[in-house]
């Protein structure tokens, strides 16, 4: 089994722990894409955690759309714990999708600002 090496996993006890703020922070710091992987619907160890996460992901997508980052950079998937092949497939799907969308405008901007700072140019900040 393999999947693209663009993916880094952050572990949570349940996707129910994933907060809108966590998702926002990842984008704010320059992530090109974020996806939340929970148990299959109806099979949450904590009953409703993955359903709550799904709603929060939808809400966050809306915000991302509103500020022009693109809600499609954020997704939620439900994969059985034992289903490695599906995990790998989803990783590939997400990787391809994000590659097609290109780098996040935030990441591009952060890199520019960083480069400008390195070069000693006065950037628009305080």
């Amino acid at each position, binding site marked *: 089994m393999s999947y693209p090496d663009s993916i880094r996993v952050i572990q949570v006890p349940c996707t129910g722990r994933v907060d*809108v*703020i966590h998702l926002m922070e990842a984008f*704010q710091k320059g992530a090109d894409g974020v996806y939340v992987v929970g148990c299959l619907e109806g099979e949450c160890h904590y009953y409703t955690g993955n359903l709550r996460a799904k709603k929060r992901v939808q809400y966050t997508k809306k915000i991302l759309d509103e500020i022009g*980052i693109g809600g499609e950079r954020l997704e939620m998937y439900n994969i059985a714990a034992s289903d490695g092949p599906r995990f790998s497939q989803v990783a590939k799907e997400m990787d391809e999708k994000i590659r097609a969308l290109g780098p996040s405008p*935030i990441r591009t901007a952060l890199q*520019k600002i960083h480069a400008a700072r390195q070069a000693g140019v006065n950037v628009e900040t305080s």
Partner: protein
Amino acid sequence: MIVAERKPLEEIIGFIKDYKKILLVGCNECVTVCYAGGKKEVAILASALKMAFLKEEKELEVKEVTLERQCDQEYLEEIRSIVDQYEAIVSMACGVGVQFMAEKYQTMPVYPALNTLFMGGAEEMGVWAERCQGCGQCVLGQTAGICPITRCAKRLLNGPCGGSTKGHCEINKDVPCAWQLIIDRLKALGKLDDYDNLMPIKDWSAERSGGPRKIVREDLRQ
């Protein structure tokens, strides 16, 4: 409680587009409970605003503070020491909080991040509904605890009107007819006779016609 919702981000961004440092203030009362302006929403808005700026290759500094209440001077006082460091305040309180904030800090531009909607409560998790319009002269005692001012589209005091069909209002099939609800409940309470008592013409001056309202409790006033 006062129920509000966040303004479209575009509108908020419009207010602050020329600033570099803002103070974003939440309120830990009604707007926290209705998921519009508590500490969590402050963090989300802060992040969204920063990203919106970054996208334009600008950096925005946002100081996040959530006060116990924005409708009390003492709580507002808590930010006095830092206010000067920012170019503008964005308040995530209801309209009351925003105005108190503006009154408190006269020299600072203060912008609302929320649209204040109504007085209501949570019907279920995530659903808030209006229950009171603050008419100043409560009739709930006569209407089986169901407010015709809020819940009847025509604010009829002696309803229903001819637009009531199968228990629903003519303005929208999903809206129950307030007067149907009142009659049903009176019936259930065995007080349908009260329905025959015509309500007199209401004194609307207690509502808005007398201008902004004020209550003074002399026993509390210092």
